[in-house]
């Protein structure tokens, strides 16, 4: 092969490699370093560097350097005139000697001269100024030919495209982060609103203060124990917080009546699930089942619930969760006409009604969650905080919970305890 052929094969191999390299999206720094090697090695250029333009800081930040020495500035400040001149010149190989009128050189002339830098290539892609490539002398000591400059510009274009792609990716990532933060803010606002709603609902009923908040917490515990994802667990909590929103439309005297309700009052009260559904349906919730939980949280698996007497498979799952949480809170808090039941009675009740009123797997999840708290497997004491410190007697409750979990169908132990 002639000398020209050898050179041609060598430079075209480098050009092909650099084209492949810029598509390497795994490691931007590595891509730039490799590209600089390929560019310098293709024409045996002794030294050089690739810098990226930061439009925020109006500076060129060195991404990769070869042979420029440790004291070469890693950041070069630019003024608008530099940027304007680069954009006017376009992607072309400019002799440093011809570029000395640029303000950039008034500041960094000495740094450029001492490194024998000969060429400056502004990286302009689609009229966007992305950075520069600086190149020193060739190993053979010859000046750059027109052919050399064409090769350099072709390779520089690839590097420019690589930087532009990276900039676009960074911008996308930044926007995605921003959106994520906005979404988180919205979620927090939504959560706060829901909690305010729950507090408003509970305010109306002086006997069941904090009921909605507790039902929200119990629903959350059940969903978490079922292994649901974080967002779904949050949805279950919201469904619990808002399940009684329909009570806002029920007469306060009925809700706060210290006596058992008469038939007419019962009819009014039993409308609250449907009213709750009407209130919640027009709202665009991040969790789709919230209105359904309000509507069906008084349904039972055996069809004896209300408002529609739905059977097991017809009841939305979230409503089954809220139903269990709601019933547990009703049994464990004082009501106008009856005192709260002790924890042992409540567990027996849940176990006996498993498969009738409550979904068995939900009873298990609920018991498992309580057991984990009582045996200190869970640090967060949500049950104790909701029920009071002394309500749950670990010595009595733990064996009962284990029995429920070990023998979901056999209630012998619990029946014995009850008798």
């Amino acid at each position, binding site marked *: *092969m002639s*000398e020209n052929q*050898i*050179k041609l094969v*060598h*430079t075209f*191999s*480098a050009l092909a*490699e650099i084209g492949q390299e810029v598509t390497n999206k795994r490691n931007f720094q*590595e891509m730039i*370093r*490799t590209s*600089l*090697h*390929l*560019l*310098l*090695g*293709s*024409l*045996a*250029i*002794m*030294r050089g560097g690739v810098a990226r333009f930061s439009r925020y800081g109006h500076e060129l930040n060195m991404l990769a350097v*070869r*042979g420029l020495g440790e004291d070469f500035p890693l950041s070069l400040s630019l003024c608008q005139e530099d940027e304007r001149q680069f954009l006017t010149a376009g992607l072309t190989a400019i002799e440093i000697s011809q570029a000395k009128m640029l303000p950039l050189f008034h500041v960094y002339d000495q740094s450029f001269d001492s490194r024998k830098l000969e060429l400056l290539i502004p990286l302009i892609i689609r009229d966007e100024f992305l950075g520069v490539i600086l190149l020193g002398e*060739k*190993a*053979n*000591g*010859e000046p750059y030919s027109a052919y050399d400059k064409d090769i350099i510009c072709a390779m520089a274009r690839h590097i420019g495209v690589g930087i532009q792609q990276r900039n676009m990716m960074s911008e996308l990532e930044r926007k995605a982060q921003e959106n994520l933060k906005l979404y988180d803010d919205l979620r927090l606002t939504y959560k706060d609103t829901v909690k305010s709603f729950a507090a408003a609902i509970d305010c109306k009923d002086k006997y069941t203060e904090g009921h909605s908040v507790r039902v929200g917490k119990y629903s959350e515990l059940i969903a978490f124990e079922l292994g649901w994802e974080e967002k779904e667990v949050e949805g279950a909590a919201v469904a619990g917080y808002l399940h009684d929103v329909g009570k806002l439309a029920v007469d306060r005297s009925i809700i706060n009546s210290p006596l058992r309700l008469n038939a007419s009052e019962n009819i009014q009260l039993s409308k609250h699930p449907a009213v709750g559904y009407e209130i919640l349906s027009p709202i665009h919730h991040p969790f789709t089942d919230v209105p359904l939980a309000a509507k069906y949280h008084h349904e039972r698996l055996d069809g004896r619930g209300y408002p529609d007497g739905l059977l097991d498979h017809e009841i939305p799952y979230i409503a089954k969760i809220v139903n269990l949480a709601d019933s547990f809170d009703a049994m464990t808090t004082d009501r106008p006409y009856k005192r709260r039941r002790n924890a042992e009675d409540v567990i027996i009740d849940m176990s006996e009604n498993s498969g009738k009123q409550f979904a068995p797997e939900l009873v298990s999840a609920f018991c498992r969650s309580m057991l984990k708290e009582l045996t200190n497997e869970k640090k967060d004491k949500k049950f104790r905080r909701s029920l009071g410190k002394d309500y749950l007697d670990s010595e009595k409750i733990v064996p009962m919970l284990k029995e429920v979990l070990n023998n979901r169908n056999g209630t012998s132990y619990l029946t014995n305890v009850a008798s």
Partner: protein
Amino acid sequence: MIPQTEREHTFNSENGKAVVFASDYLNKLSGEKIERECKTKLDAGFKTLEVNFKQTEIVNSIAISILLGVIDAASNAGAKVIFSQVNEETVELFETLGLTNHVKLEN
């Protein structure tokens, strides 16, 4: 006998001369390690660096850039560089690109 393996570069120091085996490492970004180790040898006071190409079939642009880095470092340290056991094609490439202006070729 100078230790060498097919895939790895190794150093051997003899008579004030550090010998590095280029192998195929030189053609990849990982070849920068060879350059760093050459600089370590120069810092240690070696005045001759020999790069052995016995197991290097082809030399690409990355390798040229790394070799220029070695040449530059040696020049700054006042040391000389020898390329040994270079195949004919690679010699032609070194000559075309002007690397032979800076190094001595040996068999």
